[in-house]
């Protein structure tokens, strides 16, 4: 799967949700598809997107929180998978785009390139559902089930290590942060 096509396939399923992403290629592609005020792109703080998503999911139990993670980021916070699993927020969907490389910094391979299985790790950490998907149809099906379902889920999407045409996002880091917080406040009121 090309990451851009993968994101385009599931964008309609997540665009009205609270979304937290890692930095790099993934947020650039998501931003290009259409920014929403409920999207927070974590530039830096590698590994912590899932922890931020956990805090959001625990404090906003009536919202569905989508975390877009990457293989390199998950590997940097593997222990966080056990924290998410033991906290077990039923409204968190953890989608990991696994391109088997540190794409944004030059493409060095991550451990998933030599066999590390993130879905198996998530499952063993205690995620009730953790699947690996390799086609757009499988991805759509898995994300639909997770978004419409009522339990914590992890979906590892195997994608090609293809960078976007541009990493540019016309959105200041703090602008995104404050806009995101305000968007969440208005959802809480509504």
């Amino acid at each position: 799967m090309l990451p851009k096509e993968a994101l385009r396939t599931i964008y309609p399923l997540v665009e009205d949700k609270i979304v937290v992403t890692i930095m790099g290629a993934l947020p650039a592609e998501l931003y290009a598809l259409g920014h929403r005020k409920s999207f927070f792109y974590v530039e830096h703080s590698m590994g912590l997107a899932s922890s931020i998503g956990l805090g959001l999911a625990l404090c906003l139990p009536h919202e569905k929180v989508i975390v877009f993670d990457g293989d390199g980021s998950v590997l940097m916070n593997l222990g966080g998978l056990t924290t998410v699993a033991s906290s077990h927020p039923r409204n968190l969907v953890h989608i990991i785009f696994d391109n088997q490389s540190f794409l944004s910094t030059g493409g060095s391979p991550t451990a998933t390139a030599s066999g590390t299985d993130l879905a198996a790790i998530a499952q063993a950490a205690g995620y009730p559902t953790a699947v690996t998907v390799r086609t757009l149809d499988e991805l759509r099906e898995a994300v639909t089930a997770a978004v419409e379902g009522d339990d914590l889920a992890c979906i590892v999407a195997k994608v090609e290590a293809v960078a976007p045409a541009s990493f540019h996002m016309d959105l200041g880091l703090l602008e995104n942060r404050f806009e995101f917080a305000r968007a969440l406040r208005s959802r809480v009121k509504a």
Partner: protein
Amino acid sequence: MPVSIANSTVVYDALKAVEVRLISVLPETWLVPTVRLANEDPEMTVVPVAKEEEAVGIAAGAHFAGTKSALLMQNHGLLSSVNGIVSLAMLYKIPLLMLISYRGGLGERDPWQTMGGSKTIPVLQALGIPYDELSDPASVAKQVRDAQSLAESSLAPVALLLTRSLMWEE
């Protein structure tokens, strides 16, 4: 275990009084009674983390959601959280109320705590994190309130060091 139950209760009550409703924690000896109080409190969400840096992310999520939270960790947890503190909390202007057990200070008997003890305040100073030491139970409530006020008005981390004289009964 000579951890002060009475003063742990003072610390916990102070957190409740400032409407903290989520605590992320990696417990150590001095924090065990405080964490037990949190676990027994149906109003408190407790997130036991595997490594303290996760707590910075969880606090950010809670803040965005409008929930007041606190982080409980040992000073070595502070040391292992520095990247998250800098690249998330400071970069993104996230308030953090950090309660840090200040091991390795005067009176410490565990040799393995002494190095971290000697680096705690220098690291806080290097990061520019305002801090205060909690020693007197009579002033804990005000110090916690003041720390939270500053964290929220400055949108930045503030540290409270739980000292041996507060947490330990010889």
